[in-house]
């Protein structure tokens, strides 16, 4: 970056501009394990500072990469072409929670779990629950359209974003959407921005829908011989006309890698587990929990356990949430894909993955949100064996082709970022890519915002 640009940023931010190597290293990574050094880090506290930053970026032509907590799995917050990392972590106020109209107004740096907790205190519920909810930010969740465990019943981040305030790539501050339940005036710019991975605008404020907090919940752990059996149980549950608030699948390896942290006694032959949760009014929860137990047993569950209290529920959830980072124990590098297939094709997908693992001689760990067909496929490799890495990369291609062939999508909730950019066209087609690029040009004509993401950028993919 040129010294003029840096000095202008210095005038804007004072000591909230950091350019030391040490400060930059701390913003060079996210949860992908890849690293790209930015030229500078800024910590804005107002939308105006964000706007000024983007105006300067247009003037001096440097990239601006918005970053929440840097917990993404697709590289969305990595400064692949250098420039400025704009950290929203100091814009972390919950501006208001409206208990009459049921919405919250938040700044982007609010941690998702914090909003959930504050809403809960008022008897309200912000459902989206990515596994990282205790540390990822709402701004990041909106940019990536984060999903989570309860999507099967409650939907994903986009279903709760009513309106946004965002700085576009031009440096203009735009307000989109509504603060009401309905609203159809003009194009849906809100949805356009949600999931745009910081390439169209930087969210500076969001109006988020809240719903009444469910009265009760019950959590069960059902153990099966294998993933196919688990998948069949999932479909049987849906057929029984129950919609659990979570249906999480974990294969045996996934469970084993968190055993060190929290031991779970497993009966012999356990090859897969379903973590199930139902919520709602007390009596209904009881009935549905009993029904889930019955259905699982009828579909080959070796054992069904029910958490007896809040502590037990927390433990089961902690088990689930610890899997993803815990995989690090198995191998240094994971290729982490979050494909979605129609629920009825889950069992076939699991068979395909088992076969793929054998054929390619790769260790593949699967877990994830079976209830909505969203499966985290983790190919674990050493990173030091070139042949293994090549086999793994080819396997990823195979998984994606199979997914699209089954009528699914190659990313349910992590986003494209740099990890899936090479496969964008495989799913949306050349016209889809072309239209997306045209839209990008409308929002960010100079390519300031988060360059190198979504669309293929060879330099970025290599890392």
């Amino acid at each position: 970056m040129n010294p003029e640009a840096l000095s202008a940023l210095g005038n804007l931010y004072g000591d909230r501009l950091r350019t030391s190597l040490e400060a930059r290293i701390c913003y060079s990574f996210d949860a992908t394990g890849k690293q790209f050094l930015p030229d500078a880090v800024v910590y804005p506290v107002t939308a105006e500072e964000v706007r000024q930053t983007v105006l300067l970026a247009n003037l001096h032509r440097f990239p601006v990469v918005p970053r929440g907590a840097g917990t993404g799995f697709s590289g969305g917050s990595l400064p692949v072409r250098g420039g400025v990392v704009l950290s929203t972590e100091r814009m972390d106020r919950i501006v208001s929670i409206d208990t009459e109209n049921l919405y919250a107004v938040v700044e982007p740096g609010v941690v998702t779990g914090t909003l959930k907790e504050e809403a809960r205190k008022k008897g309200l519920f912000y459902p989206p629950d990515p596994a990282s909810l205790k540390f990822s930010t709402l701004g990041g969740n909106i940019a990536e359209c984060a999903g989570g465990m309860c999507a099967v019943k409650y939907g994903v981040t986009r279903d709760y974003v009513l309106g946004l305030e965002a700085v576009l790539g031009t440096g203009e501050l735009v307000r989109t959407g509504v603060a009401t339940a309905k609203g159809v005036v003009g194009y849906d710019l809100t949805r356009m921005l949600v999931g745009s991975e910081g390439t169209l605008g930087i969210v500076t404020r969001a109006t988020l829908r809240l719903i009444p907090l469910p009265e009760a919940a019950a959590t069960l752990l059902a153990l099966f011989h294998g993933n196919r059996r688990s998948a069949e149980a999932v479909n049987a549950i849906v057929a029984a006309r129950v919609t659990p608030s979570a249906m999480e699948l974990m294969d045996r390896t996934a469970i084993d890698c968190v055993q060190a942290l929290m031991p779970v006694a497993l009966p012999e032959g356990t090859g897969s587990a379903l973590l199930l949760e139902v919520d709602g009014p007390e009596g209904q929860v009881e009935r549905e929990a009993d029904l889930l137990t019955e259905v699982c047993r009828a579909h080959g569950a070796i054992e069904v356990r029910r958490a007896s209290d809040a502590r037990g529920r927390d433990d089961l959830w902690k088990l689930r949430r610890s899997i993803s980072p815990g995989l690090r124990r198995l191998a240094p590098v994971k290729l982490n894909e979050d494909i979605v297939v129609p629920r009825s094709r889950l069992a076939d997908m699991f068979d395909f993955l088992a076969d793929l693992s054998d054929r390619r001689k790769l260790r593949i760990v699967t877990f994830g949100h079976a209830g909505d067909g969203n499966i985290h496929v983790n190919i674990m490799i050493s990173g030091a064996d070139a042949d293994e890495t090549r086999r793994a990369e080819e396997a990823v291609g195979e998984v994606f082709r199979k997914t699209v062939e089954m009528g699914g999508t190659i990313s349910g909730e992590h986003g494209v970022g740099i990890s899936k950019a090479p496969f964008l066209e495989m799913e949306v087609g050349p016209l889809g890519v072309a239209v997306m690029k045209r839209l990008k040009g409308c929002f960010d004509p100079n390519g300031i915002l988060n360059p190198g993401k979504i669309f293929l950028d060879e330099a970025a993919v290599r890392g």
Partner: protein
Amino acid sequence: MRDADLKALTGLCAKCGTCRTVCTLYPERKAEIAVARGKIALIEAAMSGEDGDAEAVQEALTDCLLCGRCERACPNQVLVEEIVMKGRADLAEEIGIPAWKRVLFGKVMTSAAATEIARKAAAAGQRLLPGKIPTASGLHYRFPDGFGGGGRTVPKLPAIGFLESLGKGEAAAGEVMLFVGCVFDHVFPEVGRAAYETVKASGKSVAVFRDAACCGLPAMVSGDRRSATSSAEANVSRLRAADPGAIVFPCGSCLLMFKRNVFSLIPKGTPMYDDAVFVADRAVDYASFLLSSSVLDRLPDPPPGKRVGEIGYHDPCHLSGTLGKGPEAREVLSRAVGPAFAEMAGADLCCGYGGTFNVRDYPTSARIGENKVTVAARGGTKMISTACSGCVLQMRDMAARTDPSLRVVHIAELVHQALFRK
């Protein structure tokens, strides 16, 4: 930094960000460099030969309370405390001790007599320490030259320390060894006394470890591996020679040193390793010792209905967190003061002391500490009890800053009161 051990430790970090949720310092700094994964990224970069500013890395590693919350929350059980301490030590060897710490360093703290001289000199000088400590000691890290500014309440040092108050030949040998620690000997000798009397009430013969060196933790967290090792070796060899059945620690941080940290100074394969294991196996926190003895059975019934719920317990990070000894102190308190004890609001919030952290960045340390005691007081607590010397020092200072009626004591003082109540 070319430390192979360090590489193995940092390699487990997946940069997931869980550490951001629990870090005591993060809410103050709101920057990645404050949290474990940021520090680990810096160490990794330094190890891979990134041409950075070693002093800046050192500064970043120093900016940590070592409260261990990240380590306990980490899904991969990355040993953050060890990484940070190793990093500090490696850098200290490469580029020296940070300038602000340099004044505190130099001499090895292997002599109880040296600490004694220091305390006396300070007490006689009527002001705390400045220029008065001729030889380094554990206290030297806590009260360096120039200490006492910035609105700090500094404890008035008593004329006579606990060890000095013992009669000649008193508590010279016994099956139970009491490791009092610098602070409970010199700064708050009444705690040393209370611990001694109550441990003695177990009916076992009690020896007080008179020729104790500083436990070594202050040196270790400062990156002074040589001094820390030298303290650890001196203590371990003397304790091994004394051959006690149990070694009781009223201070959680001293205990951590002998239970866990000692093994990175005296690792497996070194000549003194077996002795260190001997000591670690016998080292026990004050509350656990009481529970394993008959002391508590001798307590009279606590007066009913008096000061109900007014006494709380503060969880020292090292004792309750790292060593998992939280329930024991609560059990002791329930038996000693009955319904006066109640779970305190924010019991497990860090007090913000962080040993040398408090010296280095008093304003931040004080903000964290003031919040700690304010949360407790708002919850109805009128007296905070705990079991670590650093926490007592810090919370007494914080109480003085926020609510002078709030009292801070060691649990031994409450047990002593109950046991010898007239």
